[in-house]
């Protein structure tokens, strides 16, 4: 059985869903960040697969920009986590509800 673009899209959907489940069930914000990275990777994979499907390079271009945005997001987000840990001595996602309501 040959590997088609649908295989990649289904795999990307599965990885994305695992990331969504991780964001919903984890209470450690660092692990939630990792799950967000997993979701970004799944979307990148579907970008590349669809780019090859249509014979275009644009999918890979989007992945390059998504990668830069992911790097920026991780650095700022981990800085926020470190700052919250310094001021509150905990990073449990249920304790840090400063902006909840």
């Amino acid at each position, binding site marked *: *059985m*040959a*590997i088609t673009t649908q*295989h*990649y*899209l*289904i*795999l990307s*959907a*599965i*990885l994305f*869903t*695992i990331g*969504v*489940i*991780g964001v*919903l*069930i*984890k209470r*450690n914000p*660092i*692990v939630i960040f*990792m799950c967000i*990275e*997993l979701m970004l*990777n799944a979307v*990148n*994979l579907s970008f*590349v*697969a669809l*780019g*090859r*499907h*249509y*014979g*275009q*390079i644009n999918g*890979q*271009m989007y*992945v*390059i*920009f998504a*990668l*830069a*945005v992911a*790097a*920026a*997001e*991780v*650095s*700022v987000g*981990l*800085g*926020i986590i*470190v*700052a919250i*840990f*310094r001021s509150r001595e905990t*990073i*449990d996602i249920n304790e840090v509800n400063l902006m909840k309501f």
Partner: protein
Amino acid sequence: MSGESVSFWILALVSVFASIMMIVSKNPVRSALNLVITFLCVAGFYILLSAQFLAAVQIIVYAGAIMVLFLFVIMLLNLGAPEALIEKGSLQKPVAVGLGIFFVVLIISSQAILSLPQAVGRPSVTQYQGTVEAIGLSLFDPRQPWLFPFEITSILLLVAVIGAIVMAKRKV
């Protein structure tokens, strides 16, 4: 089975298993190491999809830089102890898993995946599409729309650097 399908199925199994292990394991360091395996598998998928440059960048940026940052913060905050953040038994976990399974079934059964439209016209030659040369030519081509976002990305990274320093500073 051809080599491509064998590699695809091995990489798919390993990546899905590692990502499930990532959200199952209690220890954040173990989660991070499982995420590294997933990233390496995604890099393998990029090579299968003839995006060699992206595979190299994926390994360097994700598996290298971002995961080092994650592990550094985990070790800095000393969250390595498994009992640091214990999830209490509640309705949240089964509901999340059920909604996730519903979501993935919804995506897979969507019309966009089941009947993917074919490319209009002939696709260009694809096996040289992921090289550094092709990506660079497309990225810096003024007729393509990528040059301006590329310049904006530099400003984004500058803002991220400043933001990270300001966030992590002890006192203003």
